[in-house]
C-alpha cells in the first residue's frame, strides 16, 4: 500500500487530491470545437473570414455573435431537457429509446386540452374536442401532458424491473407504441391554436430558461440527494446496491418515470413553441438526447456521468450543428458526422475506463 499516505491514520479527504473531473475535459472539448470552427471560418476561402463566435458586422455594442449563440442554445434546450432524464437512466446502466415517441404522444394529447375556442374571432378550425376541452386553465394540459410521460416512464420502469427484460427492448416497445398513440390520437391530423397561456411556455427564450432551471435542479438532485446516490450505486454495481438494502426495482421505476416526465415536459415546450402538435414530433430525439449524454461523459455501462457533463454535451452538440450550418455544409453531412461523434464518445469512454482499471 502507498507508503506516502498522509493525514491522520493514513487518511485524508484533501479536496485538492481529488481526481481531475471529467467535466473539465468535456469543457475543453467544447472550447476546442468552437476554436476549430472559428479557425475554419478564417481559413476556408469561401467563408471570407467570417467569425463563428464573434460579431462580424462591425457593431459597437457587442463582441459576440449573440444571434448564433442564442440559436445554438435554443436548438439544444428542448432535447437537452430530454437528455437530463436520459442521463439518469444511463447512469443506472439503462437506456431509454422511447423519449422521442413520448414527445410525439404527449404533444398531441396535451395540445388537445390546450386549444383556444376562438381563432381571430372564428371557432377553432382544428378543434379536436368540443367546447368543454377549450380555453382550459394552462395547468390542465400541462398536468395531462406530464401524466402521459409519467405513465410511459412508469411502464418502462415496471417492465424492466419486474419482467427483467433489457431496457433496450422495453423502451423500444414503448417507442413503437407511443408513436402509435400519437398517430391514433387525432387520426394523424395536426392539433393547433393553443391558448395564450399555453403558448407562453415555449415562447422566445423560455425553452432555454426551462432547460437551465431543470439542469440546476437535477444537478442538485443527482449530487446531493439519496435519489442521486442510489442512481449511481445501481449503475455502478446493482448487486451491491441490492445487498445494501436499496430497493433497486422501485428506484428503477422512479428513474424511468422521471425520464418520462422530462420527455413529456419537452413535448409541452415544443408544441407550445411551434403552436401546433403533430404526430411525427420528436422522431429521433431519443438518439440526440442519448448522444448529448454520451458526449457529455455519461458512461453507457452505468455509474458514471453527471448533469453538468450532459449540459456541456448538449452545447457541443449544438455547436457542431450550428458550425456545420455556419460552414454551409449540407444537413446530410451533419448526420454523418453526428453518428461518428457518438461512436467516438463511446470509444473514448471505454478507453478511459480501461486506463482507470489498469491503474487500480
Amino acid at each position: 500500500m502507498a507508503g506516502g499516505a498522509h493525514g491522520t491514520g493514513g487518511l485524508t479527504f484533501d479536496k485538492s487530491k481529488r481526481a481531475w473531473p471529467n467535466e473539465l475535459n468535456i469543457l475543453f472539448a467544447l472550447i476546442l470545437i468552437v476554436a476549430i470552427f472559428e479557425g475554419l471560418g478564417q481559413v476556408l476561402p469561401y467563408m471570407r473570414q467570417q467569425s463563428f463566435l464573434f460579431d462580424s458586422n462591425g457593431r459597437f455594442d457587442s463582441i459576440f455573435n449573440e444571434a448564433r449563440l442564442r440559436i445554438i442554445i435554443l436548438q439544444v434546450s428542448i432535447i437537452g431537457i430530454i437528455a437530463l432524464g436520459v442521463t439518469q437512466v444511463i447512469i443506472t446502466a439503462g437506456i431509454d429509446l422511447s423519449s422521442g415517441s413520448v414527445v410525439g404522444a404527449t404533444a398531441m394529447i396535451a395540445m388537445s386540452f390546450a386549444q383556444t375556442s376562438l381563432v381571430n374571432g372564428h371557432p377553432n378550425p382544428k378543434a379536436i374536442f368540443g367546447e368543454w376541452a377549450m380555453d382550459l386553465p394552462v395547468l390542465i394540459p400541462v398536468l395531462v401532458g406530464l401524466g402521459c410521460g409519467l405513465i410511459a416512464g412508469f411502464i418502462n420502469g415496471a417492465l424492466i424491473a419486474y419482467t427483467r427484460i433489457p431496457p433496450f427492448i422495453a423502451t423500444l416497445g414503448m417507442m413503437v407504441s407511443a408513436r402509435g398513440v400519437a398517430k391514433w390520437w387525432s387520426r394523424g391530423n395536426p392539433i393547433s391554436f393553443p391558448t395564450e397561456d399555453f403558448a407562453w411556455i415555449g415562447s422566445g427564450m423560455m425553452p432555454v430558461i426551462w432547460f437551465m432551471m431543470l439542469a440546476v435542479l437535477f444537478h442538485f438532485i443527482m449530487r446531493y440527494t439519496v435519489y442521486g446516490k442510489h442512481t449511481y450505486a445501481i449503475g455502478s454495481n446493482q448487486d451491491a446496491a441490492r445487498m445494501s438494502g436499496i430497493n433497486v426495482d422501485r428506484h428503477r421505476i422512479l428513474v424511468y418515470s422521471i425520464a418520462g416526465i422530462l420527455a413529456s415536459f419537452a413535448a409541452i415546450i415544443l408544441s407550445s413553441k411551434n403552436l401546433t402538435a403533430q404526430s411525427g414530433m420528436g422522431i429521433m430525439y431519443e438518439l440526440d438526447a442519448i448522444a448529448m449524454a454520451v458526449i457529455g461523459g455519461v458512461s453507457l455501462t452505468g455509474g458514471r456521468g453527471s448533469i453538468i457533463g450532459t449540459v456541456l454535451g448538449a452545447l457541443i452538440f449544438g455547436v457542431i450543428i450550428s458550425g456545420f450550418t455556419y460552414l454551409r455544409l449540407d444537413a446530410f453531412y451533419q448526420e454523418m458526422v453526428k453518428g461518428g461523434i457518438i461512436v467516438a464518445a463511446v470509444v473514448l469512454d471505454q478507453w478511459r475506463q480501461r486506463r482507470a482499471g489498469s491503474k487500480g
Partner: protein
Amino acid sequence: MSDDIILETRDLTKHYGGVHALEGANFTLRKGEHVAIMGDNGAGKSTFVRQITGVEQRTRGEIFFEGKPVHFAGPLDAREAGIETVFQTLALADDLDVPDNIFLGREMTRWDWLGPFRLLNYKGMRDATLAGLEKTAVKIPNINNAIRNMSGGQRQCVAIARTASFHSRLTIMDEPTAALGVQETAQVENIVRTLKEVGEPLILISHNMRQVFDLVDRIVVFRRGRICANLKKEETDGQDVVAYITGAKTQPEYAETAA
C-alpha cells in the same frame, strides 16, 4: 435454550438441484464469541453464510437469532436485525467513494420529509468514516476517491469498515483476507480485535491457520457440506484442524452425519 446464544442453526440444509452444498448444519454462537469456520474450497462455508443472511432461501432447517426463529427474505432483513456481513464477493459500488460505500443504503440524511429526495449529510458521513477508519488504523490515501481506483486491500478494508461502522449484533466475514498482503491483513485483523474488545460476536471464515488461532475462541470445520468438528482453540492445534479439514479425522458426535 439459554439466553446467551446469539445464533443457532438446526438441521440447516441447502441443495442446489442435485448439489448438496449444505447438509444438516447444527451450529451455535454465544454472546461475545468469535468463531472461525474452516474447510476446503467447496465445503459449503459461503453457502452456510448465504442461508443465515437471507441472500438465499434454505432448503430446510431452522435459524434462531437471539432466541427467535428468523426467516430473512433478503440481506436487508438480516442487516436490519443486526447481522453485518462481508461477503466473499465484495458488495461495493466502484464509482462511489469510501463514505458513500460505507453508508450505502443507510445514508445520514436531512430533510427526510423529502422522501427519496432527502438531502445527504456528506459532512456527517465523512466524519464518521474518518473516525471509524482511524480507530482501525486502516490506511486509505483519500477517502473521497472512487473505490475503483483502490487496491484490493483498500477495497476490502472499506467493506469491513462498513460492517464495523455500525453497531451490529453479529458480524460475519467470508474470507476477508484471502486476497490481501501482510500489512493489509494486519489491518483487517485489527478490526476483528476491535470487535472482540467491544464484545460483538463474529463468524470468521478463513483458510489462514495462524490468523484463526490468533483471533478466535472456537473453530468449526466444514467438510463436503457438513460440519465435522467443533473445536475449542485451547484443545486443538493446527495439525489437528488440518486432519479434520482433510477428512483424516471426524469428531465422534459428527461421525454419523459427516460421512
